[in-house]
């Protein structure tokens, strides 16, 4: 089994990285994951494994990461602070490293009211920035919160999310800076549809020197239909889809809308590749893993580079 983060290796080699999202199943069958893994294996550097995304109960991210690792992928363990306090989070960080997982993405998490357990207590003992700092200190200083020393520190490439489209706009770069200072070595962004606003955010990040200090991977999600685009715009929090894009989707016959969605996605990736502050792309083709291989190929991102994985 490989012992280093492939994602880190690709980024350190200065190559344009490709990651994709892989949601664990609503069930205990590992085969579902292995099937998704098969589709993603050769076309991405690492796969993000979501952590009960939108607060819907699924197979645990940690377990799914271990399964994907055994299938030869480089998993990015997404961890939200919604469901676990600082004891459980730190414990899972150690467990993840012991299982050979080499990337972690520290997140706040969607509020529990959005999922299928709205009666759940939201933990939020740490916030995502505090969590980043905790993981960084565990790795670099070998200490847990409170200062106790670890017998063996975890080995993890540490990442965070950023939403360039949320408000207050002026504060977004300040918050990104806090994440970088707290330990975020890579950043995966919210789905980019509004490229103008994304570029404005990237400029603010660059002005603060952040694009040099962290690797920003632009998030993309191919739209499946005009209807879904409209739904995402109005119902998914933190999503910015310009009306012009929705009109463009509506302008093609229903049966061709998936194709148009992929075309838009490819155009976005082409733009992202040209932006000096962007070090890769994160493809979130939710329950549409077939699209990933095609997007990566048509975006001219194949084959994925071989890196020394220790």
């Amino acid at each position, binding site marked *: 089994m490989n012992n280093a983060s492939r994602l880190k290796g690709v980024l350190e080699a200065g190559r344009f990285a490709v990651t994709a999202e892989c949601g664990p199943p609503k069930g205990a069958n590992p085969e579902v994951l292995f099937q998704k893994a098969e589709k993603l294996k050769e076309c991405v550097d690492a796969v993000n494994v979501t952590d009960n995304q939108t607060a819907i109960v699924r197979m645990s991210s940690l377990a799914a990461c271990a399964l994907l690792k055994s299938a030869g992928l480089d998993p990015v363990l997404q961890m939200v602070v*919604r469901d676990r306090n*600082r004891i459980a989070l730190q414990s899972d960080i150690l467990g993840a490293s012991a299982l050979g997982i080499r990337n972690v993405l520290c997140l*706040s*998490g*969607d*509020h529990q*009211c959005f999922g299928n357990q709205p009666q759940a207590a*939201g933990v*939020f*003992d*740490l*916030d*995502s*920035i*505090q969590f980043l*700092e*905790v993981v960084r200190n565990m790795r670099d200083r070998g200490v847990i*919160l409170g200062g106790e020393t670890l017998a063996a520190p975890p080995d993890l490439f540490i990442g965070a*999310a*950023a*939403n360039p489209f*949320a*408000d*207050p706009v*002026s*504060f977004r770069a*300040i*918050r990104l*800076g*806090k994440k970088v*200072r*707290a330990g975020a070595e890579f950043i995966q962004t*919210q789905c980019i549809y509004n490229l103008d606003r994304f570029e404005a955010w990237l400029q603010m990040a660059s002005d603060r020197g952040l694009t040099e200090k962290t690797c920003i991977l632009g998030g993309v999600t191919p739209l499946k239909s005009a209807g879904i685009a409209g739904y995402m715009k109005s119902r998914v*929090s*933190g999503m910015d889809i310009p009306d012009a894009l929705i009109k463009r989707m509506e302008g093609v016959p229903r049966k061709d809308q998936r194709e148009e969605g992929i075309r838009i996605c490819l155009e976005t990736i082409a733009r992202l590749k040209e932006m000096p502050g962007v070090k890769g792309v994160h493809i979130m083709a939710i329950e549409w893993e077939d699209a990933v291989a095609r997007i990566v190929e048509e975006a001219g991102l194949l084959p994925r580079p071989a890196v020394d994985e220790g």
Partner: protein
Amino acid sequence: MITAEQKPIAEIREMLAPYKRILAVGCASCVAECAAGGQKETAMLASALRMAAKMDGKDVVIEEMTIDRQCVKEFVLLLDDVIDGYDAVLSLGCGAGVQAVADMYPEVPVIPALNTEFIGETKDQGYWTESCLGCGDCMLYYFGGICPLARCSKHLLNGPCGGSMQGRCEVNPDIPCAWQLIVDRLDKSGALERLEMIYPPKDWSLKQGKGPRKIIREDQQK
């Protein structure tokens, strides 16, 4: 103040079903301010319960009394003279009031008539909002007088999250994003740099780390 709302009358009646002589006890403090358990609400609830009992042909006595502060021993003592005449107390106090009465009279069943909600403010007539968690270590100075623990849906000390849109919280557009309010306010007073620092994890031991909290002030004791 502590805010509360009255429980559904059916639930109250179910809890009161075994009792024949009931004293409804109101509280003239917080729960009066939020129109849930003051003298007026106590009279109205007692009257509604009497009427419902009568409709069902039940022989039940429900009388009422409102004390100034149900959570303070010296006021609860005012029940001493009357309590023997009843086989249950229906308390319209907050959770603290209910327990103070129960603690004082171990033999008497004390039934809660209210659901206690939060520490909050009266914003307008009939409009109350949550503003304090009682965390035991006030941080309002750092956040421009707006508490992110009480008012951000995710209790973020280093917010806002990615769900803040046009000043509204992702959880419900009726909720203002506490972090937008904090940023605006600190920006106005030229103190935005206060938000550049990373606020460390909250010390929750001050709220819940050692069981129920108490305050002992020797200077206040005789």
